[in-house]
Structures are given as structure tokens and as C-alpha cells.
């Protein structure tokens, strides 16, 4: 049971609204997003419930949920939302807030997804571009699941689906500089 | 609910009246122009609810805030009043459909113009008070009175009495 006290100032709601540029209070719980969302079945709380949790100021519950990590940002929900709420933006806001405030879900899938994104960004940092085979391999090593998708590899490689060599932008340095500056900017903006 | 305003103590310095100080027992006069359907009814409700507010306001009844010509404000400031409060229906509630929208435009321009030529903006105030907002009317009057007490008596352009 959750006890709801006097919600004098729902700072969580304010933070989410500000970051997402949308007003969560507009949600009237019709659930169209839930049945639209291709991954709502995998989420701890589907988008409709997340909206209500934000309204109730249940910050930690939101941060620890896997919902925003599962969001594919396919925008199907926001396109159909009768109140024109940008649901992916809300998910993204919670995600960023959770990262900023150092909340880490112990859910294996969430960890995998986070790891994937980290590797991906790291890859771009190093080469400026993404290189799929390396990406797959690194992901499998880091998630200790060496043989995942391995059955695909020979076929894909054989057919030339996934090339072995890889390229990088000439000015990977410029990218690295950009990373640094962007990080700094992020700090400054806080 | 009782609203009381403390007597302002000591000397009062007014921006519009440099060098002029007011006697300590000075009380400002505030000209209140209220629309009949919302604010006047609201001020009546303040009375029937016995909500107390400072006695400085003198109320004039007009049918609608749109009846208020800006020169009523100027005239008040030049003659009897130290400040003006004009109150009407909330946007969308106007008894005459759209009167307060026209009034709102004139009020903004008038307030800014008077401020521009040297009146403190707190001397010209506006409020939306509905017929149900008795407590709000008392609060508004208390605030306006307090603001104008801080500013002190108005002397400029009052050199000759009408």
C-alpha cells in the first residue's frame, strides 16, 4: 500500500514536465498508449501507469522501473495520444533524471540495455561510426553471454551480411573533443 | 478571517514627492471603481461575511469595468485619491460578455503610461474579483492599502485644488 500525504509540491512532476516539455497532468488515463506500445507487455509499469505514478510523485518507483529503458521511442503512442502527450519524451526525462540521480536498476534486461548503449556510445567515441560485428561481440563479452547470436554469425558473415573490416571517420579526434565538450556543457547546464 | 493593517510608523518618503514627508496619522484615500455584477457583489459579500479590511477605500459602482474611462483614474489621482483600484469580473465571466477584455487592454496601457510619467505602479491597481470572492476582495484592498501607505501621500499635480 502506498500512503499519499499532502502533495504540497510535486517536485518530481515538475522536473519531468520541465525536462520533457510536456505536461503529464494532461493524461486522463485512457490507456491508448498502453495498447499502442509494442513493448508495454515487457514493462514493469506501462506508460499509463507511469503517468499516474508521476502525478502521485512516486519518484523512486519510477526510477527503479524498467519501463523507460524498454521504451523504443517509436513514437506510436504520442501519435495516437488524444491529449497529445509526448510519452517518449516523458520516458526520456525519467531516464535522464534516473541517470543524473544515480539510480541503477538491478534488472538484468535493464542492465543489458544500459550496457548496450554505453558500448555503442563508446564505439562512436573511438571510431566516429558504428561497427556492427564489433558491437555484437563486445556486448556479448560484457554481458558474459558469449554465445548469444553466435548461431547467426557464420551465416551472416558468410553471406556478407555483416562485414568483417571496419572503418572510422578520419577525424575521430573531433568526435572525442565533442564528447568532452558535451560532457562539460552538461555539467555547466546544471 | 480578519485582515488588519498595522499603522505605518514613522516618516514616509514618497518617490513621487521627493522631500515631502507625511504626518504619522496620515491615511491614504483609495478610489475603488467596481463593476456591478462581480466585484461590487463581491464587496457586498465581504460585508455580509463580516470580513474586515482597511477603511481607506471609497467605492464607486459602475455597470462594467469597460465603463471605466482611463481619465477617471487620472482625475482621481489629480484630486482626491492617493491610489486607484479598479475591479471587474474574471475573464470569461463578464456579465456583458466581453467588456472586461476591452477594459483589460486599456488598463494595461494606462497603468504603464502613468508609471512612465512618474506615478508608482502600485498606485494604479486592478483586480478580478467575482461575486463569490468576498475574502479575496478584502485581501486585495488590504494589499493595495498597504502598498499605497508605503508610498505615502500623493502631491504631484495636486497643486491647485479643484
Amino acid at each position, binding site marked *: 500500500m502506498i500512503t499519499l500525504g499532502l502533495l504540497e509540491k510535486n517536485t518530481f512532476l515538475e522536473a519531468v514536465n520541465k525536462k520533457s516539455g510536456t505536461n503529464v497532468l494532461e493524461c486522463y488515463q485512457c490507456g491508448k498508449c498502453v495498447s499502442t506500445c509494442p513493448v508495454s507487455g515487457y514493462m514493469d509499469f506501462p506508460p499509463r501507469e507511469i503517468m499516474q505514478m508521476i502525478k502521485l510523485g512516486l519518484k523512486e518507483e519510477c526510477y527503479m522501473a524498467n519501463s523507460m529503458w*524498454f521504451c523504443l521511442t517509436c513514437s506510436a503512442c504520442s501519435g495516437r495520444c488524444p491529449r497529445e502527450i509526448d510519452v517518449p519524451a516523458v520516458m526520456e526525462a525519467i531516464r535522464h533524471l534516473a541517470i543524473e540521480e544515480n539510480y541503477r536498476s538491478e534488472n538484468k534486461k535493464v542492465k543489458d540495455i544500459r550496457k548496450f548503449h554505453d558500448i555503442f556510445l563508446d564505439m562512436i567515441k573511438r571510431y566516429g561510426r*558504428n561497427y556492427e560485428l564489433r558491437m555484437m561481440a563486445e556486448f556479448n563479452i560484457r554481458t558474459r553471454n558469449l554465445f548469444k547470436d553466435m548461431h547467426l554469425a557464420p551465416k551472416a558473415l558468410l553471406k556478407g551480411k*555483416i562485414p568483417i573490416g571496419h572503418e572510422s571517420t578520419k577525424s575521430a579526434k573531433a568526435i572525442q573533443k565533442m564528447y568532452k565538450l558535451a560532457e562539460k556543457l552538461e555539467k555547466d547546464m546544471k | 478571517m480578519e485582515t488588519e493593517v498595522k499603522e505605518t510608523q514613522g516618516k514616509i518618503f514618497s518617490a513621487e514627492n521627493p522631500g515631502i514627508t507625511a504626518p504619522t496619522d496620515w491615511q491614504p484615500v483609495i478610489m475603488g471603481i467596481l463593476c456591478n455584477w462581480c466585484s461590487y457583489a463581491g464587496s457586498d459579500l465581504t460585508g455580509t461575511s463580516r470580513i474586515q479590511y482597511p477603511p481607506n477605500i471609497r467605492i464607486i459602482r459602475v455597470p462594467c469595468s469597460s465603463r471605466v474611462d482611463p481619465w477617471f483614474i487620472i482625475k482621481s489621482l489629480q484630486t482626491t485619491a492617493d491610489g486607484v483600484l479598479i475591479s471587474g469580473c474574471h475573464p470569461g465571466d463578464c456579465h456583458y460578455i466581453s467588456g472586461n477584455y476591452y477594459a483589460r487592454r486599456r488598463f494595461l496601457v494606462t497603468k504603464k503610461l502613468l508609471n512612465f510619467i512618474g506615478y508608482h505602479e502600485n498606485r494604479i491597481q486592478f483586480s478580478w474579483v467575482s461575486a463569490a470572492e468576498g475574502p479575496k476582495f478584502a485581501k486585495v484592498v488590504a494589499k493595495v492599502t498597504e502598498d499605497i501607505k508605503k508610498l505615502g501621500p500623493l502631491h504631484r499635480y495636486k497643486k491647485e485644488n479643484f
Partner: protein
Amino acid sequence: MNKLTYFPGCSAHGTSEEFDHTLKLVMQTLDVQMEEIPDWNCCGATSAHVMTENLALALPMRNLVLAERLENKTMGIACASCYSRMKGTKKHLDENPELARRINTTVIDEGEYKGTIDIKSMLQYCYEEIGLETIKSKVTKSLSGLKVACYYGCLLTRPKDITLFDSPEYPMSMDLLMEALGAKAMEFDFKTECCGASFSISNTEVVESLSGKILEVAKESGAHLIVVACPLCQSNLDMRQPDIEKHTGRKFDLPVMYFTQLMALAFGYPEKELKLPKHIVSVEAALKHIGEAIPEPEKVKKIKKAVEAESEVE
């Protein structure tokens, strides 16, 4: 000759080489000169904006700045995901000039961001700039007999205020393009359902379920193959198909082709140019349908007869 700035995206040089290749062939036929952005970088894909705000804007901005230097009016983007990132970023930056100025400082070495370039997906470019009439005129080998299900994916037409192209729910541009090539576009309800793209590696379970549903409905529609305009869709639907078949126990056997491959075919390029061996699900059987006459379904015949009979009575 039209000139076009071209942003291929990482997968064009990887998994979707056939897309990149056939696109270049098709554009040659259509008399469009493509100028690839020199030294472009990854747009950041989903990962960047999932994790950080500024980087998600900085990565596409670098490409935009580089593209502006080429001084073409329009930039064409092959990959739907890149397209969405770049166009979304541009809209966001254009609406917040102050933010744009700040982000610009991270890539200032490349130049100043002006926001002058018009971004289009390659499908959009074919449909809006080149036009179906021109495309029709270049067809030398009609694809009649081939039934296709056009799959747009999520990002080509969504969100509507960013893409400003076609309907987000039931787009028709690719269908009309296929009809222009002579193929028959089937009624297909899952045109814009998500295939799970960004979880392609990290969460294959989701991808298989989503892509499975799409394949199922596409099969239902009676199509011989699925046409796509996005490398991520292609690889999810194609590469994962055997797995999906294994898990669901249903046989789909639905090849997944890029619209440019079919265009190239219709424009008379030999099959070897399509790089068909790269497909996990074999294309051969499907392409054999080209030239077949499509019979009128029984139901339609019946209804037509009934209508005629009724009108005679009156």
C-alpha cells in the same frame, strides 16, 4: 541534373550495403547526383538520446554542419533511424536558437550551424522530389505479378510534426511507388508498427516477438515479400526470421527487400547488382512471381455479379 547531399548512415557501409548500392544505381538512372557528406559520423542512434541530452544533439549537429558546407538544398538520408535523429535534432535546434548556439560550441571546429538544409528520407525524396511519373517512365521491366507488403517502420512517418511526411498510421507513398513499378501493394495493417529496432542486439526476445507479429500479418496479406526503407527493419525482419520461425513454429519464408532493390530491378539492372545473396531469407522464389497474372478473387467476382444482377432488376 539534380544534386543531393547524401548521408548513408553506419549500416550502409555494413549490414545494408545492398541498400546503399542499389540506391546509388537508382539515383544514377533518375539523373540525381549524390554527394556523400565527407567524414560524416554516426548520428548517435537511440543510444545517445537514451543516455545523454547534449551528445544526442551534438552528434547529428556535426553532420548537419558538414552537410551545410556542401551547399545543396536538400540532404537525403538512407537510414530511417538516422533520418529521424537528424530531422528531430534540426527541429529541436531551430526551435531553441539559444540551445543551438550552445551545442554548436562542441563542434565549432567544423563551422557554424545555420539550419539551412532541408532533410528528406530517400523514400520521401523519390516520392516528393522526383515524382512517381518520372519513376514510372524509367521502368523497363515491370514488376507486375509481384505482390508486396510495404513496411515503413516507426521512424519514417513518425512523429508527424518532425517528419512532415505521409500519414503516421497508414502511409501510402511506398505503396504507390511499388504500384508505379508495376507490383501490387497489398493491404497491410502493420505498416508502421515497431520492429523493436534499437533492441536488435540488447534485447532480442522483444525484437523477435514484435517482428514476428509483423511477419505474421504480412503473410496474412498474401504478399510475396516485404519492402522496407530502413536498414534496421530489414535486418530485424530478415536476419531474425529463422529464429522467429523456430520459436513460433510458423513458416513465413518472406524475403525482405529494400525498395531501391526493386526499383533497380524495374529499371532493368541485372539481378546480380541487387546483391541478393546477402539476404538470409532467399529472394529467388518470390521474384519468380514477376510476370504472373493476378487472378480476381472469387469473392470480388461474386459481388460484382450480384451488383450487376441487382441493377438489371431495377
